[in-house]
């Protein structure tokens, strides 16, 4: 029997089974991740820098997350809250903001709000917590932030859920003082926050 005869006589025909193809693909790709030396081919220094910066941003985010888990929800405007977290975590906030495409913490542009909400999501904040932090930022911009007395009370030993609910109510009351335009801005902000969490 020639080599060609043997080929056609193989059980299952010429083509390997789909499942075998998939098993070999999985093996090949996991092996690649385990390290084969092939991955550095064609890699530019700029790519190396990007990966390094991504690793550094991940570490800073992990530190921020850890600090946030420790401190829990505190009803502060997003800018102040993130700066306080970064200070407590002893990290620089700039690279983290840059990693999320955030240039100005006070910006109320829809795209900027969505980037901030994505960062909040990565810090494992809930949608409601994110809404309050960003809403307080908006209230601050409009000069209708809730009173400090309320904020101090909310920072006290109250149960977290109550604190969050109280913050949401106080935020909506404050924005109502700003008129229809302020309410519309809050609604727009809520839409962007929801989009960031759904995306």
């Amino acid at each position: 029997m020639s080599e060609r005869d043997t080929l056609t006589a193989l059980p299952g025909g010429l083509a390997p089974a789909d499942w075998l193809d998939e098993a070999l693909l999985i093996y090949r790709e996991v092996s690649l991740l385990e390290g084969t030396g092939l991955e550095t081919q064609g890699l530019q220094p700029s790519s190396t820098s990007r990966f390094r910066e991504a690793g550094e941003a991940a570490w800073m985010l992990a530190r921020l997350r850890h600090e946030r888990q420790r401190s829990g929800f505190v009803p502060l405007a997003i800018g102040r809250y993130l700066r306080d977290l970064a200070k407590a975590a002893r990290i620089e906030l700039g690279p983290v903001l840059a990693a999320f495409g955030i240039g100005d913490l006070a910006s109320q542009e829809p795209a900027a709000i969505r980037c901030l909400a994505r960062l909040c999501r990565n810090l494992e904040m809930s949608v409601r917590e994110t809404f309050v932090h960003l809403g307080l930022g908006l209230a601050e911009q409009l000069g209708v932030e809730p009173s400090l007395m309320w904020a101090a009370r909310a920072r006290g030993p109250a149960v977290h859920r109550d604190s969050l609910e109280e913050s949401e109510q106080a935020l909506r009351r404050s924005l109502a003082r700003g008129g229809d335009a302020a309410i519309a801005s809050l609604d727009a902000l809520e839409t962007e926050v929801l989009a960031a969490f759904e995306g």
Partner: protein
Amino acid sequence: MPRPAVSPARTDLEELARRLATLDEAAFREFASLFGPRLRALFIRSGLSTTEAEDLAVSCVTDIALKAGQYHQVPGGSFAAWVFTIARHALASWWRKNRSTEELPDDLVAPEPGPEEAATVSAIVAAVREAVAKLPEADQRLLRLRDLESREPYAEIARQMSLQIETTRVRHLRALQKLRTLLEADPRIQPLLRPKQRSSGGSSK
């Protein structure tokens, strides 16, 4: 000669996973420098352009490093298999988001990995590794060149092994058949033998 079941590199990766979970700053840097280029290469192999692959790899470096605390080593499992599972899902999400008007790849997976998926991937990798180790050295070499470590054309394999191209092709298919027979009897391969269940969001060809 058959390769050791657990290479030093794999052991180091398990240690790296432990260090990531403790928020060791150097571990995050090491993870990025090791896995960034590997993920990029993986995504290029999967059909993304160099720029697309690099952007997705950068995003995965951050996401996966942040999830490292969720990784738990299981018997036969590996950190690389766990990373692969998450990366594969990130790729599926990327395809849905960026190429929704094109036909999606046949092996597209659900947006989020299930908890048992990394263990299944690890088991498949271990089954293939052990089955290959049972084959004659010449078959192992052929499979490494053609299927396991690279995708060399038959002409190149024939040159390296001093064979005729047609002979190389036949010997390769025989080696695949032996591997197939060994794997069919392995219960760890069963998840691949079951009909695929497609998740929502992905259209099939």
